[in-house]
């Protein structure tokens, strides 16, 4: 059947399974709940960021500001918790409000000023990184008992793997994003925008609202990723998470989402994240390889997946059905 848009997704899943099997074949100890649990925990902030990035890229846009937003969030939380007696939950709410508003503002500029998302979010990237520096140039440790409580929540699986809260948050975000994308009008509008802004507009899709909501989602999820990152590192540092936006884009593309927009799935992004995490884990297990090999393998994977998409695009245009369906009229 013509389920071609799902093909890149299946390819990504197959790649992950195959890669994991190769890893286990070489290092049988990689087949453990510890590895899986760490995969989720270590990549939680990146995964959450990549979900927001998937939304943006599905519409044909891009969000370069997310890495800086994560750093800003971390520093903001650290400074607030150090200097005031505000409860972390309230601080979370505050920082989410800021990042959502920031994303919404980026979306509004992209839409109303008809500016390329690349430039707008590039400006946002510098702005947020700068704000983080203004708050503090040093790494600020977070020592709050509520953080200790959150960090101590985990589910111990057979085999000793500890599935921590932040990994669970990431899974929830992925599930939520799938429901939103496939079962809500907003989700369908995201795909519609990616299929063609003008056409979507003529079909009655609220372009302004959808665009702003998408960038607000990306900003908000980057904020959530920042919270998760601060839980992960127990600190806020303005120099952290440089280039995370590019890792997120890589995960989205490896996951089979077209950079031109309109085609892709969050599930693909999930496996994109897992593949990237798996490469890192493998290098740790190997012990002799430089960690830069991660980048090299991701680079090769990106090229492979882009080529694959090109080939699939050719294949599907060649298979377009002729007008024979009319012959089946009753």
């Amino acid at each position, binding site marked *: *059947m*013509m389920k*071609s*848009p799902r093909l890149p997704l299946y390819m990504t899943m197959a790649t992950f399974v195959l890669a994991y099997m190769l890893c286990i074949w070489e290092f049988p100890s990689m087949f453990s709940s510890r590895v899986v649990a760490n995969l989720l925990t270590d990549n939680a902030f990146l995964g959450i960021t990549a979900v927001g990035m998937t939304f943006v890229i599905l519409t044909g846009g891009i969000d370069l500001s997310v890495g800086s937003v994560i750093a800003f969030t971390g520093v903001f939380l650290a400074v607030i918790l150090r200097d005031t007696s505000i409860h972390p939950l309230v601080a979370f709410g505050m920082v989410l409000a800021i990042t959502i508003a920031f994303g919404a503002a980026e979306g509004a500029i992209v839409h109303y000023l008809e500016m390329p998302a690349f430039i707008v979010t590039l400006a946002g990237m510098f702005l947020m990184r700068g704000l983080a520096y203004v708050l503090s140039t040093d790494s600020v440790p977070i020592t709050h008992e509520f953080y200790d409580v959150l960090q101590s929540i985990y589910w111990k699986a057979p085999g000793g793997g500890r599935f921590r809260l932040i990994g669970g948050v990431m899974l929830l975000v992925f599930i939520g994003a799938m*429901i939103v994308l*496939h*079962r*809500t*009008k907003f989700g*369908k*509008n995201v*795909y*519609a925008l*990616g*299929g*063609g802004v*003008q*056409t*979507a*507009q*003529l*079909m*009655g*899709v*609220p372009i302004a609202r959808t665009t702003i909501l998408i960038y607000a989602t990306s900003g908000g999820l980057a904020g959530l990723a920042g919270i998760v990152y601060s839980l992960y590192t127990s600190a806020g540092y303005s120099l952290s998470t440089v280039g995370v936006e590019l890792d997120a884009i890589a995960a989205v593309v490896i996951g089979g989402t077209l950079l031109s927009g*309109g*085609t892709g799935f969050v599930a693909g992004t999930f496996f994109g994240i897992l593949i990237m995490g798996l490469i890192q884990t493998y290098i740790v297990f190997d012990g002799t390889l430089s960690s830069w090999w991660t980048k090299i393998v991701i680079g090769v994977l990106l090229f492979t997946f882009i080529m694959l998409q090109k080939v699939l695009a050719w294949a*599907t245009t060649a*298979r*377009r*059905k*002729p*007008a024979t*369906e*009319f012959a*089946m*009229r*009753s």
Partner: protein
Amino acid sequence: MSTTPEPVLQATGVSKFFPGAIALDDVSLSLYPGEVHALLGENGAGKSTLIKCLTGAYKRDAGTILLDGKEIDPRDPQGSLALGIGTVYQEVNLLSNMTVAENLFLGWQPMRHGMINNREMVKRSKEVLSGFGLDIDPSQLLSSYSIAIQQVVAIARAVELAGKVLILDEPTASLDREEIDLLFSVVRKLTERGLAVVFITHFLDQVFEISDRATILRNGRIVGTRELANATQTEIVTMMLGRQLEEAKKERGKAVIGETILELKNYGRRGTIEPFDMILHKGEVIGLAGLLGSGRSETAGVIFGSTPADQGTATLNGEAIKIDSPRSSIHLGFGLCPEDRKTDGIVGDLSVRENIILSLQARRGWTRPISRAKAEKIAEDYVKKLDIRLASLDMPIRLLSGGNQQKALLARWLATEPDILILDEPTRGIDVGAHAEIIELIQTLREQGMALIVASSELEELITYSSRIVVLRDRRQVKELQGDEISIGAIVRSIAEEGGAQL
């Protein structure tokens, strides 16, 4: 209806200005429930602009629009859709990255527990489409179906959404007769329900077949509104053009066929077109006839080199040549006006002047730029010769109407003074006036000794200027007709032979 009904939609004094041009000037239109109202006019007369003002796609500069007696001001197509005004545009305006069902129900998906009910959506899509005689799987991607099917889906969507007014902007351009009949039967059902339908088309026969009244526009102004029951086609055409269409019908002198210019032997491309022989003389027009997908455009592409031949030989003026790209054929004196002017032809954001000199510049090479003054002169020359209607040579070509874009494209190739000009569907989507002018132009070019190859689906037009007609079927040349053999009947018989009778 015995009592005079209230108009469902009444537009009064609508005006729209573009930089340097008045697109609509004080236009008024009344639509009554249950009527099919045709909107007629040449390309650039303002039909599409009027529609876009009604639906809010364009912001009108003056005028009021009343719907059921209440003033409305839709700011975007979504707003007008919510008010009950549905529109099907000239080109298929659906999303090819989404499924048929998603396209049908985008924005008004059936919901359950706050979520889209996909199963219900597919089920209802099947019902809606079967009302249009279409039995397809709505859960497949829209792009996996042909353009004609996509067009029917677009119509189905608008019909489902429109509660009061349905606007059909050239919906039949890509449909065959059977599909048109279906569409018309649906339109009749809708008008029985009290819907008002606006119908825009270039096919006058269809206008008389389905419409009750017609409003004619010319140069952005209303010429008049007629009850079609007591109007004639000639009357309507005269109103559209403001002049009689005599010139186009003028009997032409017999073609003076000159020496052989191009000879193709066993020429073809695997998977594109079966090998064929063709001899083209100076001062003659070879017409390519056949159904959609029969290999007309493919033949044009192979000769021009945009999809180069992989077998056979070509001789130009007695010398063996090799055409492996449009670049080489342009240098040899070929020109091709492609079928799809939006994707293959015009460069929308460049000015009309730049579009006209584009090929000439390419042929001269980038080291010998054409001076601004010279470009201006060439462009002005052709604008005058071809009667291209525009506000300024510097305006982006995408702002021109379809017919004028087509003429500008022709001008581009004529500026290179080609020996062989290939035209693929030169009159597609063009109004009667521009149509006649382009036919006239083809004949003039032929008389001047140019050799032309014209692919067209309009047989009547093809037989007026072709000295020979090549009939294609299933990507293969099946028949060559010349002289007195040429008639519509003969072409149709050749197309339909061997059981492929689906005209």
